[in-house]
């Protein structure tokens, strides 16, 4: 194994590989973002991006079909969109609707277009779409009063709905006369300093995101939330917290209630900082204050068991 030494001058806050694992973006309290090119086991620094006026918390790569685009968020309350063209990086947009630190940025599933979800300490999340002719008006919603620590998109899914025809409108008990319609189900999850996890979905009528469920289970700050990326499984959300627990929230169908399962009954030895899923959504990785990374997999009986551990 090869390590990359002295990647930044100060604390590193995020390190994200792109879709193909060929580029690595890192960010730090030195206010910069570094781009590395990955070739097998070698990592070559190709660019240092400067533009933020505070520590940069998170970075996220857009889907490759939109080109080489990176989003970064910072303590300075801004989100910057960077683009590489012909080997040259430039800022293509700045999104500054938040009044406090922006703690998380996440690109939406590519099916929705170039859409970004931002979570901030001002208690709000914003959803902004980048169009060819500039930025559309962002949607800003109050999410967690004390501050939003993390947000994560659900994979793109569709929902089947039965629409009653007019001549059958009074047949409320029967849906057999209705037509099936298919609609896109845009959802995301947020985790906040109010110890809550909230699930949001897009309301076509209201033209905004509305709360679908408030999930209570943590007794301290929710540090990270991660929605399993595969549409092939039922919905899984992992939330990790300052209270040293990880909760798996599951939903069999988008209309069912969310079910809560503690990943393990006993508490972890220390705070859990991060949760992330594998591409296929069948492996969950947790990292935390005990300096361990534990991998988890749902076994054939449906309970969660360790699938490995990263330690010294």
């Amino acid at each position: 194994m090869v390590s990359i030494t002295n990647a930044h001058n100060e604390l590193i806050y995020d390190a994200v590989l792109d879709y193909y694992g060929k580029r690595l973006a890192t960010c730090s309290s030195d206010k910069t973002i570094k781009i590395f090119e990955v070739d097998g086991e070698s990592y070559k620094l190709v660019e240092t991006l400067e533009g933020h006026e505070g520590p940069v918390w998170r970075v996220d790569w857009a889907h490759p079909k939109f080109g080489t685009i990176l989003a970064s968020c910072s303590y300075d309350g801004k989100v910057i969109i960077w683009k590489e063209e012909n080997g040259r990086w430039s800022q293509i947009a700045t999104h500054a609707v938040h009044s406090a630190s922006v703690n998380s940025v996440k690109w939406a599933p590519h099916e929705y277009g170039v859409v970004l979800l931002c979570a901030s300490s001002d208690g709000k999340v914003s959803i902004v779409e980048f169009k060819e002719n500039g930025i559309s008006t962002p949607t800003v919603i109050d999410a967690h009063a004390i501050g939003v620590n993390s947000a994560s998109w659900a994979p793109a899914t569709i929902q089947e709905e039965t629409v009653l025809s007019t001549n059958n409108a009074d047949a409320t008990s029967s849906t057999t006369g209705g037509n099936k319609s298919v609609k896109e189900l845009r959802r995301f999850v947020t985790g906040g300093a109010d110890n809550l996890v909230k699930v949001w979905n897009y309301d076509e009528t209201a033209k905004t995101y509305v709360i679908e469920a408030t999930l209570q289970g943590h007794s301290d700050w929710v540090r990270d939330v991660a929605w399993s990326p595969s549409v092939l499984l039922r919905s899984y959300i992992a939330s990790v917290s300052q209270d040293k627990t990880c909760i798996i929230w599951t939903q069999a169908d988008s209309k069912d209630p969310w079910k809560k399962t503690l990943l393990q009954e006993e508490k972890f030895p220390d705070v859990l900082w991060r949760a992330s899923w594998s591409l296929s959504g069948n492996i969950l990785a947790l990292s935390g204050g005990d300096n361990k990374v534990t991998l988890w997999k749902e076994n054939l009986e449906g309970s969660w068991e360790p699938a490995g551990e990263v330690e010294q």
Partner: protein
Amino acid sequence: MTKKELKDMLMDVGVMDFANVDSVSEQNNVDEQNEIKANSTQDFENVDDISGSSTSEEDLLDEESFLKDPSTGEVMMKLTSNKYLPLTKGNPGNLHFKMGTIASANMAFLSEKDNTNLYPVSLPKVDTSNEYSDYVKRLFDIYSSLGDDRVYSIPTIGIINTSFEKEHTTAVNLAMETLITELEAFIDLIKNNPKMTSKYLELEDSLTILNCLQLIHFTLDSPDISDLRSKFINGLLNWINRSDGEPNAAYIEQIFNMTNDTDKNIFDVSLFWNLLNQLLLRGLFEQALGCIERSGVIPYLENTCEVSSNAMKDLVQLIQQYPMDSAQTFREWKALALELGQTYIDSETNVSGELRDSIEDTLLLIGGHQNKIISASRTWYESFCAMFLFYIPSLELASEFLQLSLNANPLDITNPWEQSCTQLITGDIYHILPVLESLDTCTASFGAAIVEAKGLLESYYDNDTNTPIINSPAKEDIFAPTNGMASYMLMNFAFDLCASDNKDFWAIAIGLISIVPNVKSGCKRTTISELLLHYPFKTNDDIEWMFSVCAKWRLPEVSRSLYTMLGSSMMNEGRTIEAMTNYSKAGKFNFVKEYSWTLFEAALMKGEPLDDIMLNAIVNDGYTDSDGLVISEEILQNVVTDAMRQTLAPYAVLFRFFQAKDNENWAVTLDLLMSLIDFQYLPNYYLVILIAKFLYPIFLINDSKLIKDEYVLTVMKQMKEKWDSEDYLTKSIYITLLEESDEQLSNLLPKTLKDLKKRVNKKLSFKLCQEFM
């Protein structure tokens, strides 16, 4: 060395390693910090290849990237070489880990002031070796070639269906046999690799479970009845003896050396008879005969006791003639063995009581005496094996034999395979699958699939009809429990394969998803369409493969996404034309239009055609250099789409305009320029450039060049409609033109668009007058 010894040794080494890692790591952390301080100005492009500078001690510690936790047995992976360990055990910290889209590319880092290193890590249990890749391919081939036999269908009454059932049984039994052969071959390949010791042991355990599975469920129902007993007995002996490799050669040697320094004969020691009995219980007849010969017991008895000597000679003969293949011969053999034992019991002998008892016990053991068999056995599986060899070789009694054996020798729960084998014997197949899966996902998934094909996993029942629903129509959800455990495992395994960046694995994964039974086709399509976008394509062959999958599964949306991704990737590499081709195929006509105008603008500002062979060949119907035709019409046909032909038309006109201008063919030059100026979709700001850069300096300034009145009127009309001197983009592009123009043109053009417009209008009026006059 037996497997058990190897396991014990490995565990000891594991514990030692961790102890060493602790102490070494502390020292190395200090060393590392000193080194980092010393190199604080060093460019961080420096990437430390730890393996290159390891000492032999470090090599030992680094021998395996993954170790087992000695207390939990869980796989643990080291973040990097022990030389650069980032973590201090027991101290709280800020470790962050982010999973990548492929199993080999994940990132870990500590959010701490004195550590700004990044640690790329692979997931444990992900084998990317060529040997493993070949193994996965072979198992896939075995399963794939089962064809319709991948699905078990409940046979109905009738001659045709009976023969169908026979053929099905033959096919799945053969598939299991071949799977086991492949597993044995794979084990042979890795067993001497010190880095694969742990994997080797896990595979050996898998093999033991599969050997038992084959013996109990895939042997006696084979339609080729002739050699069933032989198959069964050989399978039984192979399973038992490969499971633990006992008794090992060193132990045998130790027994024979026991009496070296004494007056005693080896056959006077009970351990010798225990060893002989153990060999007989396990059907290791050649070894048993070798022990008898080496002990010298027969020559000794020839001189001391004729009865015992004859009994031993008869024993040797019986062992030599043990009938491996015929049930009838076995019955005759057993009658002889019983007679021999009884005769000896009834006879007077001249040997010590102890020796006589030992001979008697051995004779009774081969006669199938249950108590003797059980008391001579050290493990439940030795007595279980001996019951089949010497008592009654019938599977119907297997559960009874097992119970008797377990009563005397309980199973060792630290051996993963022992419990699974007892479950297999009692017909409980479901519970062995999680164990197999924990040992090796590939073997487990294909093994489970063959077991399901055999019809051994039908336990999902319809509540109403109480009938198995495994054969009912396929389900929507690929992970629905009703799809069956084997389908679930195969799908999971396919997902695991897709998490690697090994392209061979991808082909197998897609193949697996295609053939997995009990899952609806629509569901498979969704799965493939989601996964395919992550395929790590590099070459044209890879791209062709992706599109062939899209074509086979009719995934036009995925094709469009793939073409868009290819377009973006090529655009980043500066391959604009190929990017446009892909964007066209993706239906991204806006992109095609946008990039066509970008090319137009670049040439317009440059004042000459772009230095792009492909582009110029497109607008010139092929490209010829001094050596002949370089880009043929045929190649162009493949590259140029209808959308590109349309959107590149303005560039083509501009290209011909440049050619005419270079040839000083002014009439044609003007015609071409006018067709651009009059083009209704020409963006407004390009009108300004066309006039400022070409019309004004070439045709308007020079009073001797006449312009037809209709052209003058066209220009005036277009200027009236499109010229906006205050437009931001128009102003920007005009400023760029002034900055990039040669001295002659920049002196000629005024600083502002307003002034330019006035001058052009004035000149146009003049030209109009000139034409009338």
